[in-house]
Structure formats: structure tokens, C-alpha cells
């Protein structure tokens, strides 16, 4: 443990989250989403797209999870751009995003889930919904080799504790992210877990 923390967990502040459903095979749908959100909905299963702060995660063949900075308004612009041919639900209150970085972040994922998080199978740009501890989560691989884990707020206490416990053997540090960017590397005063 002398070489510093192997796992760092940083939790994002309030963000906007939306569940979007529609026909991804339709070019007008994809263009409409890209025009409003600034990022196109990924068609390839289990991938995510990002443009700056905004992200679109693949959840299913006709379902995406969108996220953007707090205070963004997507609902009525999307309804307008897609001429109502979509379902858009604001789920901002339901989601927690934590970023796991550090050399052993992948080990924590492998302890927590039956999914194969080997880098060969889970390179940057992939995202999966899977079992995570006794709950479920969306895990996304970032370009900087860190991972974003998105889970329900009602599981937050349990999963924060789970991750802290799973990371303890590697050296665990808890920090926080800015409210405006899910993975911004800002130096926050971080404290040891216990």
C-alpha cells in the first residue's frame, strides 16, 4: 500500500439524465438526437458516444441513457426535433455516477460482477449493464483507462460501501468530481475511507 491508492472513487455531482427510446434505424431519429444532444445515439450494442460533457449510452436496441450537465433541457427540444416519435423520460433523480480510476480499478469490477472486464473484451467506448454486487449497474470504459459506474440512487449507500470495501486491499481513496463533468480530473481534497 506504500505506492499510493490502487483504486480511486470519485462521485459526480448532480447531472441531468434521460432515458430515450426510439427507432435507431431511422436516420431522422439519429440526426434529431445528434442535433439536440450533440452526440448521436450509438447503434452498436454495448457502446457509448461522448461529445465533451454529453454522453449517450446504449441500453437496448431502441433505448439509450443520455447525460449532460445539470440544468440542461432535453425533453421538449427532443420531442420537437423528433416530432414526438420517441419516448424521453427525465431520470435525473435516479442516477449516481462514480468514476473508478487507479491501477486496480478493473480488479474491483471483476470482484463485483460476472461480466468479463478484461481490457480485450471491454476496451474504451464499451458500456455494459450487468449485475454489480447484489444490485445492477451500467459500467462504461473510458479512454483514460478509468471506468464510470452508473447505478440507482436507492442503491448508492450500499454500492459506495461495497466499492470501498472491495478496493480496500488495493489501497482505496475517495474523492469527488466536479458537478459539470463526469470524469474531470480535478484535484479535490480526498480523504481516506476510514
Amino acid at each position, binding site marked *: 500500500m506504500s505506492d499510493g491508492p490502487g483504486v480511486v472513487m470519485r462521485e459526480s455531482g448532480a447531472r441531468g439524465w434521460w432515458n430515450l427510446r426510439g427507432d435507431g434505424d431511422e436516420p431522422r431519429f439519429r440526426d434529431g438526437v445528434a442535433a439536440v444532444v450533440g452526440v448521436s445515439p450509438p447503434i452498436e*450494442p*454495448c457502446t457509448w458516444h461522448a461529445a465533451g460533457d454529453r454522453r449517450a449510452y446504449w*441500453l437496448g436496441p431502441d433505448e439509450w441513457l443520455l447525460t449532460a450537465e445539470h440544468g440542461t433541457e432535453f425533453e421538449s427540444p427532443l420531442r420537437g426535433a423528433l416530432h414526438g416519435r420517441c419516448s424521453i423520460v427525465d431520470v435525473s433523480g435516479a442516477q449516481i455516477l462514480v468514476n473508478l480510476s487507479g491501477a486496480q480499478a478493473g480488479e474491483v469490477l471483476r470482484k463485483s460482477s460476472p*461480466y468479463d472486464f478484461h481490457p480485450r473484451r471491454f476496451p474504451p467506448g464499451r458500456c*455494459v*449493464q*450487468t*449485475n454489480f454486487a447484489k444490485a*445492477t449497474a451500467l459500467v462504461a470504459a473510458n479512454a483514460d483507462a478509468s471506468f464510470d459506474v452508473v447505478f440507482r440512487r436507492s442503491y448508492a449507500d450500499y454500492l459506495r460501501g461495497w466499492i470501498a470495501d472491495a478496493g480496500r486491499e488495493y489501497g482505496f481513496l475517495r474523492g469527488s468530481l466536479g458537478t459539470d463533468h463526469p470524469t474531470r480530473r480535478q484535484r479535490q481534497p480526498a480523504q481516506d475511507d476510514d
Partner: protein
Amino acid sequence: MLLIPCPFCREDRSEEEFSCAGEAHIARPEKPAELSDHEWGDYLFMRTNPRGPHRELWVHTAGCRRYFNVLRDTVSYEVLVVYEVGQPPPDPPGGDES
């Protein structure tokens, strides 16, 4: 532990991400009110329970949350074919015992 190929996520995923929703291709009767109690009971409760290839409805509960059909061998637990709801059931290899 089975690895089940999800036709929507297009990769093999662990069985614990899935839930089995019972036998596939159970069509709801067109006019339930005209059925006898016996016929309605058959529709609700009676299943084929074959030994060998069995068509089942599964849902990727922890993943994409989509339903799809699985042809699974009830003896070896081998997942033979995975196909989407609405597609015709494939013929099980080696003949259907049901």
C-alpha cells in the same frame, strides 16, 4: 453457470444476468370468455416439460431487459439456439420430443 448469448447485446453473458420466463410460444386464446375452465386451466398452467430440446422465453434482466427465445436442452443445459420473439421456432437438432 451457463453463458447465454443475448441476441440484442450480441455477446455471451452470464446466466445470472438473465431470468427464465417459462415455455415460449404459448399463445393467448383469442376468445378467453368462450373457453371452459378446463381449457383456460390448460392455457395457464399446462406445459410440455420435455426431456431434451425445449423452447423457452428468457429475459436479460440485468442487461438490456429484452425478452428473447432460447432453444435449450433440458438434459445437458446446452443453449442450442437463441432467436428473437416473433421469429419462427427453429427445429431442434435431432428431432423434437415434445
